[in-house]
């Protein structure tokens, strides 16, 4: 079915998968920079904060189809499959507020507004902490717990899976 050209693409796709796995690990352990040499090639990767454009009617920019060559630009789509248990594991002792549904995480009601909560904020069960957008519906998420936010575990615009920790709390 495929022509040699596609073939070569498939060729790269081997690396592409290794690359995804590597990015998963980086996400898992919050690694921001990696330079490594394996039997096949040497890689250098850096992850930094990303700008997010709101586009409720369409998909946020970085969820556009990912051509193999552009993958380095798209760590956010790498599988939470592996990332989540790790996140859970990695999450230091303490309570977390977890995503009640799969969707896109937004920290503030609109790009111009300040975030619902920031590190240090004290939340009560009914405090709004974020929005999770699923199927074009913006669901306002309540803390469901009380405490002080000591860490925000995801970035604005991240896709989050069910049960993924979003905020880490300590008793206020």
């Amino acid at each position: 079915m495929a022509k040699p050209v596609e073939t070569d693409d498939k060729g790269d796709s081997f690396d592409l998968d290794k690359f995804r796995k590597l990015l998963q690990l980086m996400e898992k352990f919050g690694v921001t920079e990696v330079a490594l040499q394996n039997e096949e090639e040497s890689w250098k990767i850096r992850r930094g904060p990303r700008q997010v454009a709101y586009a409720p009617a369409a998909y946020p920019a970085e969820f556009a189809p990912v051509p193999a060559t552009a993958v380095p630009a798209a760590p956010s789509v790498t599988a939470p499959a592996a990332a989540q248990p790790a996140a859970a594991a990695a999450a230091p002792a303490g309570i977390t507020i977890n995503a009640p549904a799969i969707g896109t995480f937004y920290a503030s009601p609109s790009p111009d507004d300040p975030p619902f909560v920031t590190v240090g904020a004290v939340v009560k069960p009914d405090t709004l902490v974020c929005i999770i957008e699923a199927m074009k519906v913006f669901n306002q998420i309540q803390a469901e717990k009380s405490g002080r936010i000591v860490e925000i575990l995801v970035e604005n615009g991240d896709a989050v899976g069910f049960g993924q920790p979003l905020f880490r709390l300590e008793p206020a």
Partner: protein
Amino acid sequence: MFQRILIANRGEIALRIIRACRELGIETVAVYSEADRGAHYLDLADEAWCIGPPQALESYLQIKRIISAAEIGNVQAVHPGYGFLAENAHFAEVCRSCNIEFIGPPVEAMQALGDKVSAREIARKAGVPCVPGSDGLVSDVEEAVRIADQIGYPVLIKATAGGGGKGMRVAGNEISLRAGLAAASAEAEKAFKNAGVYLEKYIERPRHVEVQIIADNYGNVVHLWERDCSMQRRHQKLIEESPAPKLPADVRRRICECAVSLVKTANYTNAGTCEFIVDKDFNFYFIEVNARIQVEHPVTELVTGIDLIKQQIRIAAGEPLPFTQADIPHTGCAIELRVNAEDPDNGFRGSPGTITKLRLPGGPGVRFDSHVYEGYTISPYYDSMIGKLIVYKPTRQEAIECMRRCLHEFVIEGIKTTLPLARRMFTHADFVDFNVDTTFVERTF
């Protein structure tokens, strides 16, 4: 062709679809419940999203969550596998309304064939025999006797509101019909507050024969020959094979033709299966259409050399069938055994747990489709099938010898499985000679 597909399923069929997609150069997005987190097959997908807690109702059956994953994963199509949402017309509708192709038949065809009455109607239009009956309630005994004389004894008296065998009677002759009719009606009144009963011809010890069909979006419909699935227990298939043993050539031809004309009449597309029962005189009657890929599809893949999952995807992507009926061979014999995590010595109770030792059979003509491995834990939340052992050989006799050899090699420790039952089935003379029907397994083992 699609660039990314979401797989709205789990276990061996999710892995099967991931494999097909990868060979087609299509990226895959898997979804999983918390019970399946960490399974190896999820690592083989390009992306995997947790969509909910272990209970299927909260995860694999949650249309909204699966669609969210599809949007986040930015897929162009969803493959539903079998079970879960595979035959849910509403799910297909939602997918398509989100501009995500549902890899399956049109919603209308799913609905039309999903309803027993309209399915019978379609079959009649297509000239496909259904189990003869009273086509509606029988008002009085004399009418019932007249109908019974037409369709011939024995007849089955069924409560229209019936279920669980209540208000059901077999009548072998007019006397027992007259007696049974009143009794059944009374029983139905008592059980369902609805005395309505109807008649249907009673088929004794039928065989289960089904025909695999595949149709594109341009009116091309072909059959991929038949499978015999008479080896079942409580309506759960245990062994499926093709060709159907001892099925006369002309019957085989007619049953396959009937399947094609039926799905044509229903404007059905993609892969599907027409199920029939066959009586001891090889009269066959249409039962229902399974509007999805089936567990036993590898049997057909082996005898025809056609990859059904890839075909499903190509058809959904708008490609025409690459072959005509004449191009579809049937060579050799394929037999599939379902291996379930059940305890045959305790009423086939499910036996979840961790596989502590696994030695798989292999060698020429052996295929084992499974997502499990040594150290894998079978969760109690989903069905008990842990894999499908399929053998492919030139003749049925060789296939059976190969299957026995595989069952001798096969070691699964840590959980109870149906392998001991399988060893008994594949050495039973009546199975080897194929003197079986859908009641054989329960009567014999």
